[in-house]
């Protein structure tokens, strides 16, 4: 079972749901939690533990100026503007490069080879006996989150139960995380922003063909617009978490709702069962 927790809007409680779900399941089975919000990973804050770190690199072109004839084919081929060929030299902008390798293929003089460039890290830890935590972390100033997410997901590819915490939004990092998942939980809040971005997230999950269910977080009991949207789009509200000061305080301490108030564990087990039904249908 590969599950993703997404939201559209940031700050709705993705990490809160992911952390509590993983914590609860790990009491009875082996769980892998993957932090795919690689620009701002935070799940390690709930699960401090010694971690093993591995560098993530991407291939980038290096031009041999002695062999290069400055024909300009590589610059014409590059759709990202990463290579500019002048009459006497080649300028390369690594932050624009998508590591497609096309420049090395089109060079008629074999003047371009690729070298690895570090863009971030993955870390693995075992904070609880049945819980493996994998976190991707993009180096500051680097624009390409997707290769880090791919590397983090690969580390969990053989694991039986994997929960992916996505970045907010609906762009490439979210699509990369959702890709290949059996189901996704969309966490929302009953605000106009929450609903607006939920629509976008539902659209993305639909286009990727991934069954989605909804968790309403910080509910003040007035969820009419969100509930109507869910009814209209045949989406199940799998769980509602109330707007409570104590829940916020637990979260802000870096603690877990299901650890401090174990009565919540049943609700998260029920959430997982509903996700399994979603994935199976």
């Amino acid at each position: 079972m590969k599950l993703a927790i997404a939201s559209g809007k940031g700050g709705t409680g993705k990490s809160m749901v992911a952390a509590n779900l993983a914590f609860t399941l790990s009491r009875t089975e082996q769980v892998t939690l993957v932090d795919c919000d690689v620009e701002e990973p935070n799940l390690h804050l709930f699960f401090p533990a010694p971690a093993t770190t591995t560098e993530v690199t991407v291939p980038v072109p290096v031009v041999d100026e002695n062999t290069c004839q400055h024909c300009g084919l590589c610059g014409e081929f590059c759709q990202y503007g990463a290579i500019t060929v002048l009459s006497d030299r080649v300028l390369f902008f690594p932050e624009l490069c998508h590591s497609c390798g096309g420049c090395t293929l089109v060079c008629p003089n074999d003047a371009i080879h690729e070298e690895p460039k570090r863009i971030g890290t993955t870390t693995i830890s075992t904070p609880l006996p049945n819980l493996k935590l994998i976190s991707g972390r993009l180096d500051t100033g680097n624009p390409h989150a997707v290769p880090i997410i791919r590397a983090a997901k690969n580390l969990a590819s053989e694991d039986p139960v994997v929960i992916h915490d996505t970045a907010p939004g609906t762009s490439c990092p979210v699509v990369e995380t959702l890709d290949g998942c059996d189901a996704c939980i969309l966490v929302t809040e009953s605000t106009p922003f929450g609903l607006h971005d939920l629509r976008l997230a539902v659209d993305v999950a639909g286009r990727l063909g991934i069954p989605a269910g909804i968790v309403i977080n910080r509910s003040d009991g007035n969820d009419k617009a969100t509930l109507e949207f869910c009814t209209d789009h045949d989406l199940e509200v799998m769980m509602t978490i109330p707007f409570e000061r104590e829940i916020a305080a637990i979260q802000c301490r870096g603690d877990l709702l299901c650890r401090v108030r174990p009565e919540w564990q049943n609700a998260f087990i029920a959430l997982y069962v509903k996700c399994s039904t979603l994935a199976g249908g």
Partner: protein
Amino acid sequence: MKICFTSKGTTLDSLTEERFGRAPYFIIIESDKGSFEAIQNPYADSAGGVGPKAAQLLIAKEVKALISGQVGGNAREVLAAAGITMYTVHAGGSVKDAFDQFTKNTLEQSL
């Protein structure tokens, strides 16, 4: 000498455009001949890397000076390496006005 102006339109009366890589048009004036051509910027709506791509276009056209508003870091690096001098023109005037300022040498060179 070829001088390029970033422009909102295709004539000398068109307003200058402040952006470089996403300018709708490049107007290239051949100052020795007194002729000009307008080129639609093929990268105006591209996703990314438009600065270096547009700079490469000017290099291919053998432009020697660029008059624009804001030129980004990557484009600036390419243009400087190619020996293209950059000048800043303030928004609101026509390409013709900017050309007059250029010939009177009253434009500020942007380094």
